[in-house]
C-alpha cells in the first residue's frame, strides 16, 4: 500500500515538471496538509509571534465550503492558494495549512447566519417543517423555534417565506434585538 502511495508522489512530481504551464511559474501556493489548529498551544505560540509582524494570512470560508477537499481561494493578503487535501482531512475553523519561519496560513470559517422562525400553533409548525424540508433547507430546532441556515442571500429565503409570514403562520424572531 505505501508503495502505491509513494508512486503517486513520484508521478505527481514528474507531471508537475513536465506540465505545459510549468514555465509560467505561477505564484500559486500549494496547501496539501492540515498541520493542526490555531488553538493548539504550540501552534498558537508560533502564530502569535508571526502575527506581530503581520505574517499570518487567513482564508475565509463559508461553513458549507469547508466540506470541500479541493479549493482555489485567495488569502486576505491576496495569495493565490490551491488547497488539495486527502479525503480523510477536514477543513475547520482555525485549521493551519502553512506554518513556516516567515509565513502562516489559517482558515477562518464565516459564521452561519440563522433565520429564526416561530410557528403560530401546532398546525403551523407541521406546515412550516414540511415546507422547509421540501426546500432542502438546512435547519436546527431550538425548542419551539425553527432555525434556517442562510446558505444564500437572505432575500431569496424571505421571498420563499413571504406567504407564511404574511398570513401569520410563522413569525420572525430576531434574537439580536431581543425579540
Amino acid at each position, binding site marked *: 500500500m*505505501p508503495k*502505491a*502511495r*509513494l*508512486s*503517486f*508522489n513520484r*508521478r*505527481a512530481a514528474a*507531471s508537475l515538471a*513536465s*506540465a505545459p*504551464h510549468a514555465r*509560467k511559474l*505561477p505564484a*500559486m501556493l*500549494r496547501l*496539501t*496538509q492540515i498541520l493542526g489548529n490555531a488553538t493548539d498551544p504550540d501552534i498558537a505560540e508560533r502564530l502569535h509571534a508571526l502575527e506581530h509582524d503581520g505574517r499570518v494570512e487567513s482564508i475565509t470560508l463559508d461553513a*458549507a*465550503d469547508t*466540506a*470541500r*477537499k*479541493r*479549493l*482555489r481561494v485567495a488569502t486576505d493578503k491576496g495569495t493565490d492558494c*490551491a488547497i*488539495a*487535501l*486527502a*479525503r*480523510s*482531512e477536514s477543513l475547520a475553523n482555525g485549521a493551519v495549512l502553512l506554518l513556516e519561519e516567515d509565513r502562516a496560513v489559517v482558515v477562518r470559517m464565516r459564521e452561519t447566519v440563522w433565520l429564526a422562525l416561530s410557528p403560530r400553533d401546532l398546525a403551523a409548525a407541521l406546515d412550516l417543517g414540511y415546507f422547509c424540508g421540501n426546500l*432542502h433547507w438546512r435547519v436546527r430546532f431550538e425548542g419551539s423555534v425553527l432555525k434556517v441556515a442562510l446558505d*444564500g442571500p437572505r432575500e*431569496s429565503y424571505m421571498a420563499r417565506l413571504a406567504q407564511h409570514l404574511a398570513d401569520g403562520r410563522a413569525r420572525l424572531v430576531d434574537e439580536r434585538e431581543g425579540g
Partner: protein
Amino acid sequence: MAESAEALVAAAPSAARVGIGGPVGSGKTALIEGLLPLFAARGTSLAIVTNDLVTQEDAERLQRSGLIPPERVVGVEAGACPHTVIREDPTLNIEAADLLEEQLRPLDLILIESGGDNLASTFSLDLVDYWMFVIDVSGGGDIPRKRGPGIVRADLLIVNKSDLAPHVGVDLPLMRKEAEGVRAGRPVLVTNCRTGEGLDRVADHLAHDVLMES
C-alpha cells in the same frame, strides 16, 4: 521515524471529485465524452461514476465509447429521485468513488454524472469538491431567469447545444448574460458537445480550480 514517514505519504491529496448535474438530456454524458480526449492529452488520470435510475445506460455507453478503459467507469443505480443519491444520501456514490480511487491509484480526477433531474438539483459537498450544472438552449432562453438552485449555486454553469439556438429561437448572448446575472460572479460557459466547441475552456476551468495545474 517510520511513523512520521507514514504520516507524510498518508496525507497525499486525493483525486478531485467533480459532479455533473442538469436536466434530462441536456448533454451531461456528451460533455464527458467531449472532455475525455482533452484530459487524455493533458495526461490527467481519470475515472467516471454515472447515475441512472434503474439501468447502467450511461455507464455502458461510456464503457463502449473507446474513449476510456471500461474498468474506469462505474454505474450506480439510484433507484430513487436522482438528487437523493447526490445530495440527501450520497453514500452509494461515495463508495463508488472510493472504490475507483483504491483500484486505479494514482487518480487525478473522478467525474460523477448525476441522473437527469430538474433545476433544483444540487450536489452535496460531502460527495464532490466542485460541481457543474449543464443546461441546454433547447430548454428555453428563460431557464436562467427561473433561478433554480442548480443554475444559481453550481461552481460552473454550462449552457450546451449552442448549435441549436437559431433553431429554437433562443438569443444565446442574452441567455448567457441572464445566467451570469443570477450567479454572483461564478462562471458560465457556452458549449457545443457535437463539435467540441468550448470544451477546452471547461477543461481549463477544471485544471485551474480543482486539478491545481495552473
